[in-house]
């Protein structure tokens, strides 16, 4: 099982390439074009990460994040969520780039293989920028009465955070 997870990335790459070859797709051309688009994605996230990591670094150095973590720590610990991730929880539904900034800072500061680093990574990987998505969909469809969409979506977010903390403990510890 461990070997399978470790080998997953090269196996997916090979599997996709073989399937694409069988469908007569120019695999190399597609790969290079996609990689080029990756550079575009990076260029788009650099400016917002520069702005947000500056603010996140300042916030951490000031001690404000520790204060917030301490204040919410009894509640979060009772729920099984590492209190250090408090800023990520608050910012995740609101802004994707801010969440990436906060998450990246946690992963770097605590280490990618620490409990906090892993929990932050799983939280980032298993939740979405809820309010942005709601705005895009309802805006495009001209919906003013959103009924229960927001509470239901926030339920999914909360469940995602709880499940992320739980899944990391089950899988790794």
């Amino acid at each position, binding site marked *: 099982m461990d070997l399978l997870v*470790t080998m997953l990335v090269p196996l*997916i790459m090979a599997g*996709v390439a073989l399937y694409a070859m069988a469908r007569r797709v*120019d695999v190399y051309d*597609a*790969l290079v*074009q*996609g*990689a*080029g*688009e*990756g*550079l575009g994605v*990076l260029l788009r*996230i*650099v400016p917002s*990460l*520069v*702005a947000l990591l*500056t603010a996140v*670094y*300042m*916030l*951490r*150095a*000031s*001690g*404000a994040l520790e204060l917030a973590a301490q204040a919410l720590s009894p509640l979060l610990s009772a729920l099984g969520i590492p209190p250090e991730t408090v800023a990520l929880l608050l910012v995740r539904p609101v802004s994707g780039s801010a969440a990436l900034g906060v998450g990246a800072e946690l*992963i*770097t500061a605590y*280490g*990618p293989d620490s409990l906090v680093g*892993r929990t932050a*990574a799983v939280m980032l*990987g*298993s*939740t*979405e920028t809820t309010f942005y*998505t*709601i705005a*895009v*969909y*309802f805006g495009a*469809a001209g*919906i*003013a009465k959103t*009924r*229960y969409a927001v509470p*239901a*979506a926030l*339920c*999914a977010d*909360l*469940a*995602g955070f709880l*499940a992320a903390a*739980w899944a990391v403990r*089950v*899988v*790794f510890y």
Partner: protein
Amino acid sequence: MAMAVLWTGMVAASILCGLAMGNGPAVAAAAMEGAAAAVELCLSMAGMLCLWMGVMEVMKRSGLSEGLSRLLRPVLKRLYPDFAGDRAVMDNISANVSANLLGLGNAATPLGVQAARLMSRRTPGTASDSLCMLVVCNTASIQLIPTTVASVRQAAGCAAPFDILPAVWLASALSVAAGITAAKVLARLWRG
């Protein structure tokens, strides 16, 4: 404007809190470090992110999305019973879900938005139960391979950046299940 408030608030709060707690010099140093750290992070993420965007392009061109969306259709018809007979809506929803699974976010959003537009014609201005379900499902992440997070972990010196995959799948599945359950329950309770 929301981001302007958030950013300004973060900077102002860190100066106030830093001064109050005697961490003023640390805040000043951090203000110089953050921007450089962001560029370094992006540079060390670049290789892996580009590679995965390449693999995703191969998936897209080989028709993997279409195959997946055919597999998903029977399940999705049960999730959107009101639109099970509406070919255009179901086509868009299943393509939206398969693009989301493969991490093709740029392709997924227009498809989902198109489905939302078509669905809203029956109940102009008000979100029907099915439309709420579509939005809730799109606010939960179901990406099978979270590329960006894995590249951040790799940039931080992780030897096996994808070892979080089983945990991510578990958490995503539970989050989607909770969203669908909440939408189903609220659909019965909500008045108006």
